[in-house]
Every structure is written in C-alpha cells, then in structure tokens.
C-alpha cells in the first residue's frame, strides 16, 4: 500500500481474441483511500496502438503526453502510422532511460498490426521490461485479482462479442475486490478496421 504506484489506484487489462484485441480500465482517481474523481480513464490511443497506463497519476498524465509527443514526431519522420510492436519498443526504451529515477507506472499495450492483421498485446514493469503474452496482460493495483480472473475466464479464439464479455467480467469482478480501483470502467474492443468503446455499468463504491 505504501509505495508510489498505489497512491492513486487504478488498473488495466488487455486480452487477445480471434483477430481482435481488447483493453479495459477502471475510472477511479484517488488519494489514498479518498476518491477524488470517477472520470479518470487510463487508456490512450496512439495510431494503431492502445496504451493503458496505471500507477502514480502524475506519471500517467506525464507519460501519456510524452508518448503523444514522441508518436507525433514518429509520424512526421516516418510518414506512417506507428504499429503496436514499434510503440511497445518506444515505451520500453523510454522507461529504461529512466532506470535510476523511474516513472511509477505499469503500462499495457494492445493493438492490431495494420499490415499483418496480427493481434498484439504486451505489458511492462516500471523500468521497461516487456512482457510478451499470447493470452492476457494486467497492470495496476488489482493486478493479483485480474490475474486470478483472467487465468480462469480466458480461453483462446474468442470472437469480439465474447471477448468483450470475458474481459468486462474479469475487470469488473477484479476491481470490486480492490479498494483502490473501480468507480466505472471502459472497455475497447479492437478489430482490424473498427474500434468499439463501451462504458460499463459498475458499482459506485
């Protein structure tokens, strides 16, 4: 409880389905046990990549701006959109640059490669070690609960609509067992040409 990455609370989860990926987050912003806001989404889009950022809220905001800047520069230099794999390496090296004075975050990247059509998800630790996963990745204060939920609920090759139910139930029930997460939830279902963003009905305590 007493480390910088669990002052503000919050959690994210990403999952792979059949030709689709999903990423979801809670909406809480707190100061220790006091909830300050219920409108603090933690997922940011950078071209083809979706970034979920949990941890110390000041670092979540700072990093989301840093990546906006870096991805804009990438667009100008390369004259193309950034792919999830490339973006993941950008996140990794940006975090490792601050090896001895890290940002207190637990990022998660999800997206579909626009060239190959392959779903891609990965997670990171606070100094940028990439966790490539075929199934799901989690981050934030309810990561243990999310691990338990995802490990039980997830199965391979879920269609977008089924993946939505699975990731939503995983997120909702995990955050209900974490005092630092909750107060609303957002889930993105990403297919090759379409993004569906849904605001979920959740407990408000």
């Amino acid at each position, binding site marked *: 409880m*007493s*480390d*910088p*990455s669990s*002052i503000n609370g919050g959690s994210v989860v990403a999952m792979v389905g059949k030709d689709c990926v999903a990423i979801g987050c809670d909406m809480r912003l707190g100061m220790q046990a006091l909830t300050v806001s219920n409108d603090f989404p933690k997922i940011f*889009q950078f*071209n*083809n990549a979706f970034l979920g950022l949990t941890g110390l809220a000041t670092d979540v905001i700072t990093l989301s701006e840093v990546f906006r800047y870096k991805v804009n520069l990438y*667009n100008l230099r390369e*004259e193309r*959109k950034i792919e999830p794999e490339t973006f993941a390496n950008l996140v990794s090296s940006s*975090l*490792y*640059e*601050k*090896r*001895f*004075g*890290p*940002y*207190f975050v637990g990022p998660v990247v999800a997206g*579909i490669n*626009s060239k190959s059509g392959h779903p891609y998800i990965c*997670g990171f*630790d*606070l*100094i*940028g*070690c*990439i*966790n*490539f*996963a*075929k199934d799901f990745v989690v981050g934030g204060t309810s*990561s*243990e609960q999310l*691990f338990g939920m995802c490990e*039980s*609920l997830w*199965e391979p090759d*879920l269609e977008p*609509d*089924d993946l*939505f*139910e*699975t990731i*939503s*139930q995983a997120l*909702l029930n995990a955050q209900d067992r974490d005092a630092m997460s909750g107060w609303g939830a957002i889930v993105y279902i*990403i297919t*090759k*040409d*379409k*993004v*569906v*963003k*849904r*605001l*979920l*009905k959740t407990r408000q305590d």
Partner: protein
Amino acid sequence: MPGFNFDNYQRNNFLASKGYPIPKATSTGTTIVGCRFDGGVVIAADTRATEGDIVADKNCEKLHRISPTIWCAGAGTAADCEFVTQLMSSTLELHALSTGRKPRVVTCLTLLKQHLFKYQGHVGAYLIVAGVDPTGPRLFSIHAHGSTDVGYYLSLGSGSMAAMAVLETKWKQSLTKDEAMSLCAEAIEAGIWNDLGSGSNVDMCVMEVDKPAVLYRNYRTPNERSIKEKSYKFARGTTAVLKEKIRPVVDAVQFDIFEETIIRDSDKMEIDS
C-alpha cells in the same frame, strides 16, 4: 547506453523519505546454466518471470542473442538483462565492422564487466555468456558488480543450487553435444521443480564451432496446463453497458491533416513553374 536520465531521481528519493519506497522491478527468480562440450557450448534457461510471489510471464525468453554466434542467459533484474544485452549486441557489431574481424566472446565479456563495474552493481544483470569465435568455444559468467568466472559448467540465479547439484553429480570431461544438451535440460528442470522462482519450460541454445548457433525455444515443456473442467464463456449481453461508441481504428480527422501534407500531386505542384 548513451546515458541514463536522472530527472525523477530527486523526486523519487523525496517520496521514499516520505514512506513511499521505490517499487521492485521484475526480478527474475531464475535458473540458468551453461556447459561446454567437445566442439561447442550450450546454455539453457527456464521461462518464468516473477513479480514478487506472482508469475508475471509464464513463457519469457531469458536467452539473448548478442551476435549470431554469441548468446547469453540472464538472471537478476529482467530489464537490465534485456538492455545490457542489446547494448552489447550493437557495440560488438560496430566493433566487428570497424576491425573487420568476427566478434570474440572475451571481447563481449570485457565490455560487459567494464559496463557493470562502472554501475557498481546497480545494473542488476547476472549473466552466463557463451559462444564460439575464432579462438574456439567459450563459456563465462558475470555478476552484477563486474566479477567474471570461467568454467566448463556454470549455473546462476535463484535455482542455481538446484541446477549445480545436478551438474556436479552428472558432469564429466569431454561430453558429446547430446549429453551436454540433456545435462543442461536436466539441470534447468531441477530448478523448475525445486525452486519456486523458476518454472514452466526449458529454453536452450547450442553453439558449435563452424556452425550457426541453434536456439531451441521451449526445448522441453513439462508444465503444460491441463484442460479446464468448465468453459467460462458468458452469454452475450451479460455485462451491463451504459454507453457505446464505434469508429474506425485510426481517427479520420487526425490523419486528414497529416495525409494532406504528403500528397504528391504533379498537376498541383506545377502551378508555379
């Protein structure tokens, strides 16, 4: 490593002084081994990455390619192993290009130990470096403070005692390639079963003289998850939704401006001329 950035260092120390200590990075409780044989060298690793008591990655890659014939197995802080290895890879390639010679394992070893010593153990990489070069097969280990060891068989990580127990009982001089491979796999398996920091699969890399190195990703998979008793698929519509928004992946508005700037329309371009 062109250099680290210490911008947040003071802030983080202040936070630490207020009772918010810096969280632990993924420290890979690991078993890694290396073993020489006649005409080559083999290294192996387990594939579990942990964050505290939780398994963060069940099938991570702890075997890193430094050059096509020099590979290294990493224990300790996962990010440090990854990046220090990438740094060596690029430095060694440039060095090979400028000298016009094939990179040597000792060169890699010296580069690594100088780098790690410079950071006084704060770059938490514990490595087994192995490879073949013009001087033959080579096998070394390096600790985070910069000390190095040479050996015919080595082990490192939280499962090193379990692995070394196997190596010490079964190793003999002049092993064949197959003997060395199964010895290493058995040593890693000892770590997988008996050390809680290690688990899942065995990865292996074999480097032979005058042959390309071969990576055996998941050489052994003794920990396949059994099929679940039940499927937990939900009926569609089980989750309550308040709002829904559908749009294309890349925001059209965002890229209209961008795409305009790269139009190369010959008719329009020739107005001035």
